[in-house]
């Protein structure tokens, strides 16, 4: 399959697929694995055609080009195959493993908590674990408590893991490429509702560095910070706020760990106000961490308390009315910004 050399508008799923395809072409040490990542393994009439190409179709067509030796369907054995991806990475391959839903972290935690993240450190820097774990985060699909979680804070709490979560198609391609090439384990979070979102994506090689937040919209009155889907909410909220005379600067975090503290602080220095939008649970979470970081490093610039729009401290409910109430959305962000802007000085 030819990959365009010029920029064009494609979906996030296509952008991810393109990144994997280009990297696999360039590096024979890359293998991909996951449940039904091709699908229909050893089904005779499929003649090695895929049955699914991943539950969300992200890996469609890859088995055609790279064959079943490099595109591996796995049994439902997350502990074994995520662990195997870590082990293969430590011994010379550069695997990309798909953990379908991030809630399945429960089924393979040891491989990431005690093995992949720590090998390099425990071995005194003498090991390298260049593995990428692609996983789905987020609600909105009515998938309920076990399939709608947003767990990047849990991953980010583990030293040794890098954690990435893009909000648009170009970043999806560029950050995935950077993740694959990175020599450390990277947890690459894909929001379940965003695969069909389209955006302009550069053709050919495209890299967005890990650890660099983006100023997605410059502004002067308040800093709105989001990541993955909440960066999109922040941008939408900023449009509404602009009509009401509030000029919000939007920071798309893009990488949760390592955290780009400087970009955040620079913005807060300029605006004096910060509202953080985060779909994860709040206790010991991303929003509270950033609020703490800003309080300790940029307190003197703050003109109002840091606002936070997060999920509540509860699992994700099933019923659409409940899930809608649970999730952050642009209206909640607008309300939080107004509250923040109404506060002192």
């Amino acid at each position, binding site marked *: 399959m030819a990959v365009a050399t010029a920029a064009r508008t494609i979906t996030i799923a296509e952008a991810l697929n393109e990144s994997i395809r280009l990297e696999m072409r360039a590096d024979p040490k890359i293998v991909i694995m996951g449940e039904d990542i091709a699908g229909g393994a050893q089904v005779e009439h499929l003649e090695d055609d895929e049955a699914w190409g991943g539950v969300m179709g992200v890996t469609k067509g890859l088995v055609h080009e790279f064959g079943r030796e490099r595109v591996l369907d796995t049994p439902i054995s997350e502990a074994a195959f995520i662990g195997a991806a870590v082990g293969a990475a430590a011994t010379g391959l550069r695997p990309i493993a798909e953990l379908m839903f991030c809630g399945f972290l429960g089924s393979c935690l040891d491989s990431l908590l005690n093995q992949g993240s720590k090998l390099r450190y425990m071995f005194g820097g003498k090991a390298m674990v260049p593995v990428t774990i692609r996983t789905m985060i987020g609600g909105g699909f*009515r*998938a309920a408590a076990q399939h709608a979680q947003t767990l990047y804070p849990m991953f980010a709490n583990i030293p040794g893991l890098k954690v990435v979560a893009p909000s648009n198609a170009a970043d999806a391609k560029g950050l995935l490429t950077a993740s694959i090439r990175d020599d450390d384990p990277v947890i690459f979070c894909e929001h379940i509702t965003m695969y069909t979102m389209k955006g302009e994506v550069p053709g050919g090689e495209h890299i967005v560095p890990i650890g660099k937040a983006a100023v997605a919209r410059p502004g002067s009155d308040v800093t709105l910070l989001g990541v993955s889907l909440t960066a999109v909410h922040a941008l939408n909220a900023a449009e509404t706020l602009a009509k009401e005379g509030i000029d919000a600067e939007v920071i798309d975090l893009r990488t949760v760990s390592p955290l780009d503290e400087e970009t955040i602080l620079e913005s807060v220095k300029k605006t004096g106000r910060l509202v953080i939008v985060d779909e994860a649970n709040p206790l010991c979470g991303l929003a509270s961490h950033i609020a703490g970081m800003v309080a300790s490093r940029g307190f003197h610039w703050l003109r109002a308390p840091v606002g936070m729009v997060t999920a509540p401290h*509860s699992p994700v409910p099933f019923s659409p009315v409940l899930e809608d109430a649970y999730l952050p959305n642009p209206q909640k962000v607008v309300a939080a910004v107004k509250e923040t802007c109404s506060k002192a000085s």
Partner: protein
Amino acid sequence: MNLSQDQLRSMYRTMVSIRNFEETVKQAFAKGHIPGFVHLYVGEEAIATGVCSALRSSDTITSTHRGHGHCIAKGCDMNSMMAEIYGKATGLCKGKGGSMHIADVGKGMLGANGIVGGGPPLACGAGLTSVVTGSGDVCACFFGDGACEQGTFHESANLAAIWNLPVIFVAENNGYAQSTPASYHCAIENIAERAASYGIPGAVVDGTDVFAVHEAAVEAVKRARAGQGPSLLECKTYRHHGHFEGDQQTYKDDLYKSVSQGKDSIRDFRALVTQHGWFTSEELDAIDQEARQAVEEALAYAESSPLPQVEEVTSDVYVSYP
């Protein structure tokens, strides 16, 4: 066969109720009335029915993402089930769980489960409770062929064996885990052979034959209740629809399709009991009609039920909170 007329009638009613319930869910889902994902049990009715008809009401079961049939066979109320699948306040879980987490602890139904392999450890726990309290109850643990490749299954089978727990592990082998054939994901042909490595009895039964399933389950339950520990029952079956609604099923080969067409537990049951003169077709038709009506009622109940109140988002996280 040691089954009374009443037992037979009840087993048939359970199977047709499940079939009707699932086909109704399928239609409602296609119309966009049901949020989220649904995984249908059509084709596999004889397993839940055959096993649960060997249980008493205080026994427990653990289930899977494909859990509606297990619920019905364990006696859950279809109105509240349908309301749950619709996300309504009157649902079994107040609309907070949905199809993948439908549960009725009071009925011994310890929950459908979104985590493949989530059930077996819970079943060991239920078995332990039975042993410690001396209740004599058993736990039937349902899981798919795909779940057999989870460490939790192996660890639980061994734990149940060494602790002599009253657990019946029921592998529902429908040949596929999503689009992945069991012949690929499993190194051996019969999952039941693994029983030998845990030192427990293992049996392969035709999972479309409710009599065969029931007989094997009765045997396993008897052992478990007598303090002789767990068993592994592999029920070979066929999933008539997709993995979830919307699945194109290109991976199913002609053989699977034709065999699954030819193996219909409900049709086979009817043929057998009418041949023997135990029931007339008219009697069975009347049960069909009752089941259809009950499911229609469930649908109407779900559709007309109120939505949950938003306060429910943060309730039930803890029993108490300071």
